[in-house]
């Protein structure tokens, strides 16, 4: 980072005496053409400098999750160098090895594991180098605090052994790893390096990034998703100074030196568009999803004879659940800066997948990949693929057209209206109980609009009629459709629809949030039918001791009284009080999480108040307990908002919920106290924790509402109107 005193601005502003404008120019890191990027090389991940500091290079990015701090701890632990000496460079295709994008909670189990192996390989090499220097066997040496020491007192610093030089080594997948019982850095609540800057406006965000000669760009999206641009009246923006209108087929953009000029021009320009009304509308979307043409059926599980077990059962139950389209609803709209030059194109972006974005942009724009550099910078939290990649394409289109660097920041209606969405999901569940109240059969069917895999079409290039693929991947939607409980006869089928009304992408815990809502609500319905306490019913079907432990811990934190639901002691004046619980083994293979909560439902207004949430969380070895808690609390509160409020509303032409009134999220007065119990298992592998605790929230809430009111809500969001309507129908 270099500090530039901008004299021209200083003069322009006629600042008072002593006032000084200091502008931070976050130029490209100087880079080093000799630095390897191959993920099989240690030097690709780690550089030890001559002053003893260490830089970690990774394609995984920290979108506010604390991942970079976990990387620093992991590398510091294996290398024996103080964690304060580590910095992280994330997601720069000219500097960082490509070991995957950021998503699916893979940052810790795969990202940190790669860095750990590179650091372990480096430690072995450093011990060998030190052995030569100190003339003592490597097996007698240890590294701590950045110093290699022999019991005789001989010592040498790591910096003087290797500082500034390359190790030139392949990552050894079998390099000996430190025993977790000796850890001193991993497992500690190390403070995040980014937080002080975020609290004092010093942290460099993508939104703050500028280049010399940079223009501000805005894109005018069509009033209907498939509308074509027919004409533009440039006179309509004649009064706005120094703007240029950029037209490429149906792509309509504005660039201007002054950002406010670009904003006003994009808002005021008069354009005529063709009519288009190709959407089903969000009203009655559940029926649409159930009846739309199916592309393929996917069998997830099939054992025993479900039909026979259902027809011979003592009790049979079926229920339909619906989860709407939801938005990432990033607090800051997506942003990007692009500089298209003959010599090469550079994109600054908050994308979660810099290498993926580079490959896609290179393909769509017909540029060789080695002529495109994508540099990640922190933006507003993304929770999956929000509009970041689309904004990058917008900026590149505008920069190429304008011949200057262009910064695009979407407006609020662009992000809410046009970010790719998490898909709607419809679940039909059937279950049977035997005479002793055990689950004898279970069937889950899901209908989900998720089209072909592959890159989703970028908005700008689509308007500009550039050829591209039209994938609609939304992540691994089918995990956790099966119950985590013992069921002798089980059938799980996913019906993938041929198309989707809205563009899709991965949204935090893709599919799993809705799947666990359906599965764990239905488990509660079965418990009620079996005349059993919901915790006792679940424990009967669980054999995994880690699952049993989180369920028991959560029930304990909530002072769970063993009894049937609904709550026989519910009334507190106009408020009905209840408790609910839900459990998940995330992806049926990773974290164990149980969430319990207490709720008050107003009899007359239907308003839901969550009073308290508790969570027991087991993700194996905990790298940073404070960072983990922060993430788990965040998952829980974000998903509480998704369950209470969030639904993308659209008509036949476009998304109409395009601000925080039309698409509300959780607010401060609604946020309850959250208590998290972490179960640390140093001898077990770490799973990522960026998603798992989202999954049980909606079911725990629905189960608590049932406990309070006797009414079962099967459609998200649980707005006060929906609750009132459910009361009326009860």
């Amino acid at each position, binding site marked *: 980072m270099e500090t530039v005193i*901008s004299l021209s*601005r200083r003069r322009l*502003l006629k*600042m*008072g005496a*002593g*006032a000084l*404008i*200091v502008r931070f120019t976050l130029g490209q890191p100087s880079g080093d053409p000799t630095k390897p990027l191959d993920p099989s090389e240690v030097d690709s991940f780690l550089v030890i400098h001559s002053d003893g500091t260490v830089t970690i290079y990774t394609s995984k990015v920290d*979108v*506010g999750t604390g991942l970079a701090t976990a990387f620093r701890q992991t590398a510091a632990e294996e290398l024996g160098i103080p964690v304060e000496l580590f910095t992280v460079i994330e997601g720069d295709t000219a500097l960082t090895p490509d070991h995957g994008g950021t998503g699916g909670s893979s940052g810790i189990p795969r990202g940190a594991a790669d860095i750990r192996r590179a650091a372990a390989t480096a430690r072995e090499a450093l011990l060998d180098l030190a052995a030569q220097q100190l003339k003592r066997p490597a097996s007698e040496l240890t590294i701590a605090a950045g110093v290699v020491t022999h019991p005789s007192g001989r010592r040498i610093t790591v910096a003087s052994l290797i500082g500034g030089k390359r190790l030139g080594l392949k990552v050894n997948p079998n390099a000996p790893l430190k025993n977790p019982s000796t850890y001193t850095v991993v497992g500690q609540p190390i*403070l*995040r390096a*980014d*937080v*002080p*800057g*975020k*609290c*004092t*406006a*010093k942290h460099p*965000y993508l*939104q*703050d990034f500028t280049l010399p000669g940079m223009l501000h760009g805005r894109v005018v999206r069509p009033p209907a998703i498939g509308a074509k641009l027919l004409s533009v009246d440039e006179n309509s923006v004649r009064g706005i100074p120094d703007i240029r209108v950029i037209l490429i087929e149906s792509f309509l953009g504005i660039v201007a030196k*002054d*950002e*406010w*000029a670009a*904003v006003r021009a994009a808002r005021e320009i008069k354009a005529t568009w063709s009519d288009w009304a190709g959407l089903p509308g969000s009203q009655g979307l559940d029926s649409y999803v159930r009846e739309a043409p199916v592309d393929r059926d996917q069998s997830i599980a099939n054992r025993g004879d479900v039909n026979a077990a259902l027809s011979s059962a003592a009790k049979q139950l079926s229920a339909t659940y619906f989860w709407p389209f939801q938005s990432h*609803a*990033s*607090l*800051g*709209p997506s942003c990007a800066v692009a500089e298209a030059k003959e010599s090469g194109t550079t994109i600054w972006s908050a994308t979660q997948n810099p290498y993926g974005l580079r490959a896609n942009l290179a393909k769509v724009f017909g540029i060789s990949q080695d002529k495109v550099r994508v540099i990640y910078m*922190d*933006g*507003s*939290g993304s929770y999956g693929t929000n509009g970041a990649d689309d904004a990058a394409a917008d900026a590149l289109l505008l920069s190429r057209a304008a011949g200057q660097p262009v910064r695009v*920041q979407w*407006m*609020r209606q662009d992000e809410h209206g046009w970010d790719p969405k998490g898909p709607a999901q419809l679940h039909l569940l059937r279950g049977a109980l035997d005479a002793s109240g055990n689950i004898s059969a279970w069937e889950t069917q899901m209908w989900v609009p998720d089209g072909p895999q592959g890159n989703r079409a970028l908005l700008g290039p689509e308007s500009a009629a550039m050829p591209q693929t039209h994938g609609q991947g939304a992540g691994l939607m089918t995990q956790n459709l099966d119950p985590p409980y013992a069921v002798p006869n089980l059938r799980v089928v996913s019906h993938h629809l041929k198309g989707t009304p809205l563009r899709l992408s991965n949204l935090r815990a893709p599919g799993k949030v809705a799947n666990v809502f359906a599965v764990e609500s239905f488990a509660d319905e079965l418990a009620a039918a079996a005349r059993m306490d919901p915790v006792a019913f679940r424990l009967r079907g669980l054999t995994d001791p880690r699952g049993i432990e989180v369920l028991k811990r959560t029930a304990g934190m909530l002072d769970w009284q063993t009894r049937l639901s609904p709550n026989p002691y519910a009334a507190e004046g106009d408020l009905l009080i209840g408790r609910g619980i839900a459990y998940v083994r995330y992806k049926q293979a990773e974290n164990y999480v149980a969430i319990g909560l207490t709720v008050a439902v107003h009899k007359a207004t239907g308003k839901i108040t969550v009073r308290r949430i508790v969570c027991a969380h087991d993700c194996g070895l905990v790298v940073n307990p*404070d*960072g983990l808690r*922060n993430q788990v*609390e*965040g998952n*829980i*509160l*974000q998903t509480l908002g998704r369950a209470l409020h969030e639904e993308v509303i659209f008509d036949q032409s476009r998304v109409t919920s395009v*601000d*925080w009134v039309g698409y509300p*999220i*959780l*607010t*401060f*007065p609604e*946020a309850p*106290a*959250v208590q998290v119990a972490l179960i640390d298992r140093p001898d077990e592998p770490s799973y990522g924790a960026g998603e798992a605790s989202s999954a049980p929230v909606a079911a725990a809430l629905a189960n608590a509402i049932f406990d309070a009111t006797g009414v079962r809500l099967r459609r998200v969001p649980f707005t006060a109107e929906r609750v009132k309507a459910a009361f009326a129908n009860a």
Partner: protein
Amino acid sequence: MPQYKFRVNGGPVTVDSWDPDQPLFYILRNTLALHGAKFGCGLGQCGACTVLVDGKAVRSCITPIKQVAGRAVTTLEGLGTSEKPHALQSAFITEQAAQCGYCTNGMIMSAHAVLTKTPHPTVEQIKQGLAGNLCRCGTHTRILSAVLREVSRLAKV
């Protein structure tokens, strides 16, 4: 071009704006290179752009520059620095009350305004005071803890 004189973080400034309705937000970020205020909605709905004008929390994204003339603006930079943070900023750092940090500016500025008006607020008063500030990462409990930390510090001084 019309000029507007006001104070920012204690010092006088004079800025040009071709449009008297240009929001203060763009002047702060683009003319004065003060990046504390963040663009969230441009509609006054989310609070990410909050600054203090004469000590009161306002949404800089919907405050026209013409209304700021002659007044005193405080941004996040004006409270304190990373090296010498304001006590409220320190409380946020100690509680690690951020994930992406995009809402943090608004949370700190709004909380500052709450504590200026009500130095000994109840939990409910803090929550109501931050009701217009959205956080998408779900760091509400930590933000509340940070403000409460500052409340208890103020109670001791």
